[in-house]
């Protein structure tokens, strides 16, 4: 796996302090949210905890700067607003983060199913994310819990139906 390309801001100390100047702050948060999504996609991670101090995303050892938990929370909330993150617990310590919104994922899966002619057939979630057929897709290797959420959204629209079997899930697309 190639080395992650950090943006130049990552080595700029003020980047780790929330800026009071409104425009600067907006720009700062935008870079941060992009960085979060890119980094997590790069390492293929879908959940992060605010207290995960050793995550390189949260601290840059070379300039000895780290994000404060408050700022991390702010960034995650920003991501939540754009539909790229959701808290997993009430204390908002653990978060699910995804580089595409649930709706985008849902549509992606649905389009792929239609393209490959798998409508009206049943497949397991494992097949969807780890199957040989889906290696070229964006949702290959994605977190099953996130996929489940995306599919629930599709289910609400009447495009598929989730079936639970022995603790694992299957899905039937219409």
């Amino acid at each position, binding site marked *: 796996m190639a080395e992650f390309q950090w943006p130049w*801001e990552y080595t*700029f*100390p*003020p*980047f*780790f*302090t929330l*800026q*009071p*100047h409104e*425009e*600067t702050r907006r*720009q*700062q948060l935008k*870079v941060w949210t992009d960085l979060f999504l890119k980094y997590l996609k790069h390492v293929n991670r879908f959940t992060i905890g605010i207290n995960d101090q050793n995550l390189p995303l949260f601290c840059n050892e070379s300039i*000895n*700067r780290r994000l404060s938990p408050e700022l991390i929370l702010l960034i995650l909330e920003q991501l939540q607003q754009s539909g790229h993150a959701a808290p997993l617990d009430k204390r908002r310590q653990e978060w699910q983060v995804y580089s595409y919104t649930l709706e985008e994922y849902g549509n992606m899966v649905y389009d792929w199913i239609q393209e490959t002619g798998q409508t009206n057939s049943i497949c397991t979630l494992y097949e969807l994310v780890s199957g040989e057929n889906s290696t070229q897709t964006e949702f290959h290797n994605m977190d099953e819990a996130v996929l489940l959420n995306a599919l629930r959204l599709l289910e609400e629209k009447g495009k598929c139906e989730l079936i639970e079997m022995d603790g694992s899930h299957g899905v039937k697309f219409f």
Partner: protein
Amino acid sequence: MNRFVYEEARLKENESFVSRDRNVKIYDGDQKTEFEDGEVVLTTHRLFWGRPGEIARAAITLCLPLSFVISLSEETTASNFFGRKTRIILHLHPPSINKPPGPMDTSRATHIKLSGKNGLSVEFHTALRETLNARVWAIALTSETIVKGAESKLSVGDKLSRIQKRTGIGGIERHLEAKAKETDENIALAFQDLSVLMAMAKDMVGLSKNISSKIREQRGEISEDETVRFKSYLLSLGIDDPVTRDNFTSNTAYFNSLAQQICEMLLDPIEEHGGMMSLADVYCRVNRARGLELLSPEDLLHACERLSGPIKLRRFPSGAMVLQLESHDDELISIDTLEKVRSAESLAVEELAKQLNISLLLAKERLLVAERLGKVCRDESVEGLRFYPNRLLACDNDYI
């Protein structure tokens, strides 16, 4: 009146100050005397009367030992047109035969009266009555007789404690009273010093005014460069005619002219300081220039709020207040600050203050202004607050 003796106005041992009053005249019996408009001082043992200032100088004054007083009464007369005043009547024992010389040794009256323009103050009256009741002079006598016995080396404190022991609750009360009197005396003494100082100060101010006007008259004749410069410094240091509240009937007029004077005197210094001066500095400068007519911080603030024209008061969002030149421009300042930050890569508040030779407060405000305009951005870490050129904003990235 023939019970009075001439004596130096000094406290003896064990004697302490009780009260004083001004503008007091003495009646010999019902007759007016030449002793008018004087100052009376009541001690635990004696009553002094002197012309104003005499007692403070410990000069020879009239003195009446309180042991001569039999009783106290008062009479009330109409004063001027309205109001009433109270005279104090002191009934006296006959004078002793070998009494030292005093004023009016031939008087036959058995009482004297103390009176003033508006009567004597209530405080003095009460103090006199209480002192007479306390009969401290008598105690001193008894204690002396005790001392004459075996324990002649007892200290004053021991004597007092003996007396207190013997007199029970009365002793405690007396002790408290003595303490209160002592406090009173201290306060009175303190204020006395202050008034002397003020009186002296007025002379000093007059003197310095005199000198400065003389210097001004002779200015043309002095040829030596340094003397001229030195003297012009002297002149610039003080305001010849400070605006004081006394000269004005309304606050508005007072503050307005005060504002004008502040503006006149600070215009040059503020320009020298780069267009901005913190209010604390202003306060020091103004009061130093005013010499003795000191301004309260509140008055200064009110005056500054009224400043209009080349200098105005500015309140930063942080609450800090400065006087700054009207021409002083945030945009220019922030660009200037940005230059400083950029050439140093990053700056802490104290570093900028050192570089520009301004106070920390002003340096911080400069950086915050630049931050508000998006020129610099902050970095808060364990190392403290530092400011960097704002590379986060795209517009700024073009020329970094």
